[in-house]
């Protein structure tokens, strides 16, 4: 199965395969024989190529948290099909929350034509009100939040119709 793992600003396309000696991770840097042995309570013995380490691993949705050698790392898994679907669309994206917070008001409805820069949603975070504006001209496909909602970072507040 192929997956893209996003680490910071870098995307790593990987395939996990069964090989003669165990699981093989095909990465852009070449194949790695890898293993993960659970030690209980989120602890694992991890091996990749000739590297070995103990790690704490937790997953939530498509996000993977790894505590390894005294550092915490966050990876996001992306299905290649989703990446391709997104890459193929013109528009069809949305406006995202720039920070976690609470929705104060929603200023647009589905179907509305908006201009780039038009106010879409007002949210509050850290006692500051932030207005989310349209990233480009387009028609609103859906509104995914309502006043009072708690939203996470990069939550899609409003999505736009695809304009292929």
């Amino acid at each position, binding site marked *: 199965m192929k997956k893209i793992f996003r680490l910071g600003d870098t995307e790593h396309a990987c395939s996990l395969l069964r090989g003669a000696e165990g699981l093989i991770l095909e990465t852009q840097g070449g194949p790695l024989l890898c293993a993960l042995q659970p030690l209980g309570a989120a602890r694992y013995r991890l091996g990749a190529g000739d590297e070995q380490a103990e790690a704490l691993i937790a997953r939530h949705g498509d996000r993977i948290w790894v505590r390894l050698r*005294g550092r915490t790392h966050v990876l996001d898994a992306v299905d290649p099909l989703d990446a391709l679907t997104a890459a193929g669309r013109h528009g069809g994206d949305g406006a995202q929350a720039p920070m*976690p917070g609470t929705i104060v008001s929603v200023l647009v409805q589905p179907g509305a034509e908006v201009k780039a820069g038009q106010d879409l949603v007002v949210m509050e975070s850290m006692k500051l009100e932030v207005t989310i504006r349209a990233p480009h001209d387009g028609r609103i496909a859906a509104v995914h939040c309502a006043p009072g909602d708690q939203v996470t970072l990069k939550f899609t507040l409003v999505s736009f119709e695809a304009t292929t």
Partner: protein
Amino acid sequence: MTAAPIRRLLVANRGEIAARILRTAKAQGIECAVVRHAAEDGGLAPQLADAVVPIEGATPVAAYLDVAQIVGAARRWGADAVHPGYGFLSENPALARALDAAGISFVGPPPEVTELMGDKISARRFVAERGFPVAPSAIEADDPGSFARRALAVGLPILIKPAAGGGGKGMRIVRSAEVLEAELAAARREGERYFGDGRLFVERYVERPRHIEVQVLGDQHGSVVHFGERECSVQRRFQKIIEETPSPALDAGTRARICEVAVGIARAAGYVGAGTVEFIFGADGQFYFLEMNTRLQVEHPVTECVTGFDLVAEQLRVAAGEPLGYAQADIGFQGHAIELRLCAEDPAQGFMPATGSLLVLREPAGPGVRVDSGVVEGQRVGSDFDSLLAKLIVHGRSRSQALARARQALADTACLGVATNLDYLDRILAHPQFAAGDYSTAFLEEQAAELGGAAETPPIALLLAAAALSDGHMVAAAADMPRLYAQMGAWRN
């Protein structure tokens, strides 16, 4: 002011400080309750308390700031005392007065002292009038028309502060006269927004200053002692991140003088309970009164480590009317302690508060390691409250031993599911300037690039393996490959 032992204590706070207070109070056989808003995932404190008293409000924060709610909760549950912790209503004299009216003790100083110290302008005037050192300053309210001119007369650079401020909010440094008016206007707007009070004052800005504070304690019978100083210069935008005691910057003489000044100010103010006198300490060895915090400080545990005192226990004794029962000479200092604040904020996103579920939480242990945590594994961390999750406190015979223990404690800590400053803390500790004790409040900003960890290269192979192998679908799909083909590999004819 009472003179009765406390039997039922309501903790009007949350998070790590509520848990911290509950641990001491319970150990003294006091029955304890903690308040909680229905919308919050309370974490550790509600688990430690004997009872949880619900409070209501449009937002969880509003409930904690609502004097009537807190007093109501205390009465409903039958508390004979309320501990406010820090933040929220801890420095609000209205709570102390309302509780007093209800016949309930307030664990903290009398409202008059809180009022005096709560207003920065009146506080510094009070302190200056009694001959203690304050930085050259100008106060807007004295003569608003000449404020800008008087501000410049203080001598650049200057620091603009809201009169009602605290926690670094609304503070601005001005280095050139041209921008003064604009900065004053901006500070006034911020003061109005944060505190509902646009009054300002300015004081001389000490370049590369250190932030040093002294823990004091007074009883209801006029005794005031100090518990030494704390060095709190590792700050980001005026938010303390790492604190230690003793300060690496003070020699014995200066230490004695600064502590003496702190006790003098507290005594002059008629201080009762635990409080902290904050000073700005310049590179020239001069120090100036900054403000007094009339409550327990976040960083109080380092003081507890080196003195062996339980400051919460002392607060409760004082609130119950007991005399201190010891003199300054009875307070000894052993070794060195460091506190690290573990916060739910993402250094990679400009320290934006982070939310999520604490999927995995591992706390350190071992000789000289103490954890004051407010959270439990599985808990949801929202954006309603302060981002502090837990404090790691280490104690060693020497600073170097404490530092080594601090680094090991960080290595043994894990917090997955919510972005934290854990790795950032370790990079601070690893920085040679911190190791040398040679830092000011500008340290984090000056070393931002290095502390950002850009130079670190993540172990990509291991991380990708962890990501892939912990993905059940990926592993199942790989296992789906017939064994024959797994053995044959990528052969083609």
